[in-house]
């Protein structure tokens, strides 16, 4: 990545749009401080504090978290225990809180709470559990890497509602997406190309720009016709 200047406001939903390979997930991993995605230059300021050198755990305890595009499997770990981990920093969670988190991602608590995260759940189900774990954590900044992938179109509305709920609960949300519906629900959007932020602004304008200017330009998205 280079030339990435990005500001996410308090309780702002900010979409990152861009073609495959533009660096959107790399940006998410860098913000979370994952191994192999450390800063070489530049800085990350969170709530006025430089967190550039902090570890993943330290960033999480400051209130930053990440929902992966392809969630981990966690053999043997029950859904209730997974959801409770994120809530520890906030003084724990009640049984009703766990159930409510599952309901918000359209999963029946009585069916899922005592199942294993990795136990033959579909990709969509694991994705919803990943999002539920963000709800129980109540982060200040939730980074969602393509929360819509692996989830059917009908459920897009629920994802949008979930993102809004996170905002209402006090979180800023940085959401990486290809979906216009999610971008449209954002307060602001930024367009990434080849590791840089091309422009930031009104989500509908950014989305239109991406559709009309980027997609025809980018052969990774729209391969050129053979001569």
């Amino acid at each position, binding site marked *: 990545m280079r030339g990435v200047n990005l500001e996410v406001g308090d309780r702002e939903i900010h979409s990152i749009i861009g073609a495959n390979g533009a660096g959107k997930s790399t940006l998410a991993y860098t913000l*979370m401080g*994952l*191994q192999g995605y450390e800063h070489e230059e530049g800085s990350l300021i969170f709530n006025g504090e430089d967190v550039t050198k902090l*570890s*993943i*755990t330290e*960033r*999480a*305890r400051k209130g*930053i*978290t*990440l929902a*992966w595009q392809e*969630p*981990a*499997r*966690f*053999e*043997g*770990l029950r859904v209730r*225990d997974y959801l409770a*981990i*994120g809530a*520890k*920093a906030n003084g724990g969670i009640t049984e009703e809180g766990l159930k409510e988190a599952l309901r918000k991602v359209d999963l029946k608590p009585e069916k899922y709470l005592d199942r*294993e995260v990795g136990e033959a759940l579909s990709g969509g189900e694991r994705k919803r559990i990943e999002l539920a*774990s963000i709800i129980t*954590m109540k982060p200040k900044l939730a980074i969602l890497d393509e929360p819509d992938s692996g989830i059917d179109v009908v459920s897009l509305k629920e994802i949008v509602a979930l993102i809004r709920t996170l905002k209402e609960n006090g979180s800023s949300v940085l959401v990486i997406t290809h979906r216009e519906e999610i971008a449209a629900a954002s307060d602001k959007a930024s367009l990434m190309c080849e590791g840089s932020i091309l422009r930031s602004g009104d989500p509908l304008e950014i989305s239109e720009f991406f559709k009309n200017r980027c997609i025809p330009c980018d052969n990774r998205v729209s391969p050129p016709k053979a001569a």
Partner: protein
Amino acid sequence: MTQITVNTLSSEIENMDAAYSAAGGDAAVLHKHELASLVVSGNKVLNANGTEGIVLERQETEHGVDIKMTIKKGYKIPLPVHLCFGLIPEDGLQEIKMNFVAEEDSAVELIAHCTFPNAVKVIHRMDAQMLIGKNASLKYTETHFHGPHGGIQVIPKAHVRIEEGGSYYTNFSLISGRVGYLEFDYSVDAEKDAICEMVTKVYGKKDDKIKILEKISLNGENARSVIKSRLAITDNAESEFRGITEGHAPRARGHVDCMEVIQGNARAEAVPIVRVDNPLAKVTHEAAIGCVDKKEVETLMARGLEEDDAIDVIVKGMLA
């Protein structure tokens, strides 16, 4: 109804209750007359309580106890039978010989805790012969606790025969405390329509040594089996796993699944072996040895756990 109450020193009972609890059991179940139970400390039977449908015979020997347990034909024992074997002193030898028979159409669940909380120089041997009769079912859960010192050799050996339509589920778990030296050797012969599932979960630390040999011979038509092994080893621990499944009959189906997580200077070896001599049988296997999954660790760190705590959660989840 067979009910035998053996008078013995109350302090021994208290010690075994404490040891049973240390192994993860609820000692109260050992004193409920409506539940069948057997408690053996060293070579003494502290408690032997049968219920209707169970014939329990025991004979104290120089270093242990010979046990014969029979589940009578047609009896479905509604509540689990609790077994506790252990040795309280720091050193000693315990040899358990068990002859278990589940007669035709019977069903029972055995919950065993083997506990050696103070072991510094202890040897525990178990030699079991199990017969699961026609359409009978045995579920056998065995949890071990060997204390913090690692000064123990545990050598359980069993041969199980499952007759037509019978089923055998076993879950061996040694997760808390040290392992010491474990040499686990179970073999199963499965006849027509028999079902067998064997699960072992062990967490080795420091200089623990773990050897697991599990063998299932699918001798009868349509016999089915799974061997599932989950091992985690850290520090300088070593593990060897051999999971053998043989398919000898039409439509026999078997699978061997071994996953080992290693950390530190630990060394692991996993060898799944499949042998098939019937063209209509099918046996598959998978084995993986590696470090803890990086994405799982980073996910839990992104929820606020320190790296070591994240690894602990993942390993315990895998062994749960």
